[in-house]
């Protein structure tokens, strides 16, 4: 029986009190994040929202998912998931945020490559305005930021 007693010692953690406190913290953070959404901070809003979400996720992982008391390997695996996801997001962003927008200088000569049957505005290639020759008013998607 000794092994299992140890097992339970090792798993003897948490408890209703800790879980309740965790829940209260999570609910408060939810209220905070909803409240923050009503203040316009520009691009700061998304940063704050994701920051709070991450705190909430960490709380869930540490207490509800017992990582605080668990074998470190389990936490490491979960972190690895996030690290590889970070790599994925990071390099995609690197590409998307540093693309050059190539535009033909004499755009007015180009027919808009609209394939037959496609919906209007089907392409992000700008529709050249006949009057504004050489002035690409609407930039293609690559230039949108």
């Amino acid at each position, binding site marked *: 029986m000794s092994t299992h007693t140890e097992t339970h010692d090792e798993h003897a953690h948490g408890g209703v009190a800790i879980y309740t406190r965790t829940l209260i913290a999570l609910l408060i953070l939810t209220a905070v994040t909803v409240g923050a959404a009503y203040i316009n901070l520009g691009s700061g809003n998304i940063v704050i929202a994701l920051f709070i*979400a991450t705190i909430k996720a960490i709380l869930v992982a540490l207490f*509800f998912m017992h990582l605080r008391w668990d074998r470190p390997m389990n936490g490491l*695996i*979960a972190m690895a998931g996030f690290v590889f996801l970070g790599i994925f997001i990071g390099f995609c962003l690197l590409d998307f945020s540093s693309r050059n927008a190539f535009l033909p200088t004499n755009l007015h000569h180009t027919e808009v490559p609209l394939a037959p049957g496609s919906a209007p505005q089907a392409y992000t290639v700008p529709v050249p305005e006949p009057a504004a020759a050489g002035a690409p008013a609407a930039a293609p998607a690559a230039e949108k930021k």
Partner: protein
Amino acid sequence: MSTTSIDLPSHGGHGHGAHGDDPHHQHHFTTMEQQFDTAKLGMWLFIATEILLFGGLFVGFGMMQNRYPREFVEAHEHLVRWQGALNTVVLLISSFTMVLAVESAKTNKRAKTVGFLALTIVCACIFLVVKYFEYSHKFEEGWLPGKYYHAVGDSIAGSHGYATFFSFYFMMTGLHGIHIVVGIAILTWILLRAKKGEFSSTYYTPVELVGLYWHIVDMIWIYLFPLYYLIQ
């Protein structure tokens, strides 16, 4: 040869006590503890795959948001904030009841285990009901994914960014919803087993694993909520 053999009982050596006959003990594990740890390790690996599975959608969302920032902000106005917030609270509470169910199973409180599992299922159902109202509203208004998008009256209606936002909205909340439905199914299965008294302090692995699954579903919603309902 580099190895020798020592004599070990085929069903494991140390700590091999009364519960060596535990019907849940699989032959290739030495101890129940090893079996429990292995199962949990496997579950965490599965969780990592879930993170990356949803992660792909988050990356797609992020890149398209980068491409259509104005359209995404405008499209998100069509989501009802309080409904999202309500669902967040419901899921947080369900996570709480889930962790209590695990705790009860671990401490041999059968009735409480069943009760908390039932509460978790109820919360999950509330979540789905709210989701149903959200979805049906969007169906009525024509805020549908991709080429099915046919809303009228938006300032940039018909533009790609708009339809793309709802594509992602339906894909991500839909995949999350599928996880909730699967969750309800396995929670029910666990509940029935708990009712039969199959779990005890020596064997509660399924409750623990389902708990982990349920928390990761909650955690994904924690990210979905601000991304969809609160962006500016």
